[in-house]
């Protein structure tokens, strides 16, 4: 892979940063307000560093994690042949050995995402270049977000119509729903993971961040909300 990609959320961060520096008469010495840009897995992304906020409510961009999508009647069997664990029902997920996760989005559709240290998704992308019958790779260009902190359920109550408190987390649920009008995939837990189509990334991020800031939270470095 050559060149680099830009996170679908990067623009939201850049706009926010520009607005902040315009608001301040002269460039502030208070570096903490300024987002920094980083690059991981050939993806450029920006992140906030209001470090203290993750205890109440923090949000971070995880779009840079590598991921792979696949669907088709033979997708489950094919993934099994690659030694991946298969969640036994739609809307369930399982952790992967070595980090990352596999989510079953329907009878025949799956999302596999790496952790910061693993690299299963690029291998699967490679292997699926010449897929067997009834296995169809799905291009995933998600905006991927993580949320954490003590007020997370209050945030979800404002932005989704689903009663998250009622979920049984020991069943490893995956929730397909809408959040502020955008179709999203959510994995609840200690940290909440959210995926949506990349083209909605800026809108979803800005809208969530507005509410989060009202609740005294903010954008944080991804290390504070790193998934398993």
């Amino acid at each position, binding site marked *: 892979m050559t060149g680099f990609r830009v996170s679908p959320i990067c623009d939201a961060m850049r706009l926010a940063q520009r607005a902040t520096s315009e608001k301040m008469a002269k460039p502030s010495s208070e570096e903490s307000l300024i987002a920094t840009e980083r690059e991981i897995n050939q993806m450029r992304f920006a992140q906030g560093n209001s470090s203290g906020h993750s205890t109440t409510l923090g949000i971070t961009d995880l779009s840079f994690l590598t991921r792979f999508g696949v669907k088709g009647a033979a997708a489950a069997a094919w993934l099994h042949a690659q030694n991946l664990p298969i969640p036994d029902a*739609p809307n369930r997920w399982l952790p992967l050995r070595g980090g990352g996760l596999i989510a079953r989005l329907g009878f025949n559709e799956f999302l596999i995402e790496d952790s910061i240290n693993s690299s299963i998704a690029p291998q699967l992308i490679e292997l699926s270049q010449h897929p067997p019958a009834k296995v169809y790779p799905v291009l995933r260009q998600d905006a991927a977000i993580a949320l954490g902190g003590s007020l997370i359920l209050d945030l979800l109550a404002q932005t989704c119509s689903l009663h998250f408190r009622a979920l049984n987390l020991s069943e490893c649920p995956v929730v*397909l729903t809408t959040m502020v009008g955008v179709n999203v995939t959510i994995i609840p837990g200690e940290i909440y993971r959210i995926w949506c189509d990349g083209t909605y990334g800026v809108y979803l991020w800005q809208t969530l961040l507005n509410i989060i800031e009202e609740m005294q939270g903010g954008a944080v470095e991804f290390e504070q909300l790193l998934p398993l």
Partner: protein
Amino acid sequence: MKLITCPINGTRPVSEFVYGGELRLISDPQALDDQTWAEQVFYRNGAPGIKKEWWCHVPSNTWFIAERNTATDETLNTYLYGEEDSR
């Protein structure tokens, strides 16, 4: 808030769904004359009643059948296409 139960994803607000029209069995176009084909394409069962309809849960793209009273907007039953009897 109006709720519909998706057979896969459970009970959700109607805003998560799109309506796909009444379930209709279309005959083989080759076997029909133009007039009958026009009826199949254009004519609808427009009076209120309990109808079997296509609905889709959009976040998961799940298409299913809902039996709904179109006079009162009550959904009586929902199931995946072809799985009516298994319930």
